[in-house]
């Protein structure tokens, strides 16, 4: 998959340029093939990395007017990868993501503020397994050609969302802190 992702930028840059370049000011689009949402949890001191393969975003964002921005995400929890098929099957179970009852996690921004040049704090509501938590996500923007890359990382407490319930509540086995890392490629964002 990573080699595919390396080969894709040129092709999709041309593609997105042709598609969206003329419509400046329209909604910004996410380029899924060049975007990544990953998470790292720790079990008995062992960092275990996972990724969400399917997610979508609605982004209305003008760097000149961050206060007017609206950013919404849906993440397909069933698309999580975690090394072995065994652990992925475990992740779908009710104690963890319970993907049958809660197939998606959502994020909706409530306020976006510029914190430094090219840096923004995106505050909003993160909903996983029906539990809502206010989070503030620091985002760094970088622009190259038609693409804008938004990247950042933040930490959530898994137990706030009942991820790892029942026998798995013990945080000495699986740490409460889970790091979420993202790198999103957007098109149609105005110059910084």
């Amino acid at each position: 998959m990573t080699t595919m992702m390396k080969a894709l930028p040129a092709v999709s840059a041309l593609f997105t340029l042709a598609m969206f370049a003329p419509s400046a000011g329209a909604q910004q689009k996410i380029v899924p093939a060049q975007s990544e949402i990953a998470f790292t949890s720790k079990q008995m001191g062992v960092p275990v990395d996972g990724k969400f393969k399917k997610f979508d975003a609605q982004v209305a964002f003008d760097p000149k007017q961050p206060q007017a921005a609206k950013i919404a995400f849906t993440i397909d929890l069933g698309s999580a990868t975690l090394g072995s098929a065994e652990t992925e099957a475990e992740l779908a179970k009710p104690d963890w993501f319970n993907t049958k009852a809660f197939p998606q996690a959502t994020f909706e921004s409530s306020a976006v503020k510029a914190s430094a040049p090219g840096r923004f704090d995106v505050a909003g509501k993160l909903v996983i397994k029906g539990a809502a938590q206010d989070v503030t996500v620091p985002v760094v923007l970088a622009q190259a050609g038609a693409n804008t890359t938004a990247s950042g990382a933040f930490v959530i407490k898994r137990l706030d969302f009942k991820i790892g319930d029942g026998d798995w509540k013990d945080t000495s086995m699986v740490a409460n802190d889970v790091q979420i890392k993202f790198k999103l490629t957007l098109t149609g964002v105005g110059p910084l």
Partner: protein
Amino acid sequence: MSSTRTLAGAERYSGVAIAFHWLLAVMIIGSLSVGFYMSDLPMSPTRLKLFNWHKWAGITIMALSGLRLLWRLTHRPPPDVAMPRWQRVAAHATHWALYALFFLTPLAGWAYSSATGFPVVVFGVLPLPDFVPVDKALAETLKSRHHLMAFLLAAVVLLHIGAALKHHFLDRDGLLMRMWPRHS
């Protein structure tokens, strides 16, 4: 220098060799037993705990076996007890097979662990490098290699124990006493 005479006159292994032997015997038989038991357990915190302990034990066994091999190569063991040539050849082959598996079994387990995306962090504090990528197909291959080596190791251990007991109870040649901890 590495061996001392017993009252019976048979030369003994050195104290260091005897300590390595019994410490590793306990650790290896323990790790094999835990390994066979845990592999069929459904996912639970207990399973996760056993897997981590098993990994720590395996890495420790490999490290101690490295030191033990160094000791073995620099200190002459006692000469062979009188026995038919085929038995002597079989005994030496068994010993070298044991040493090979002391390294290969944990190495395959370590690689298997890396390939499943669960790197080994010894005692929860010392992260070991991953020398294979995270890859499901590779993980399945390494899992069956690790299991194969564990079964081989268990078989060679049983052969080793069986032969030692044969020498002790049937041949009564004092071979086992060379490795028996000296009673004070």
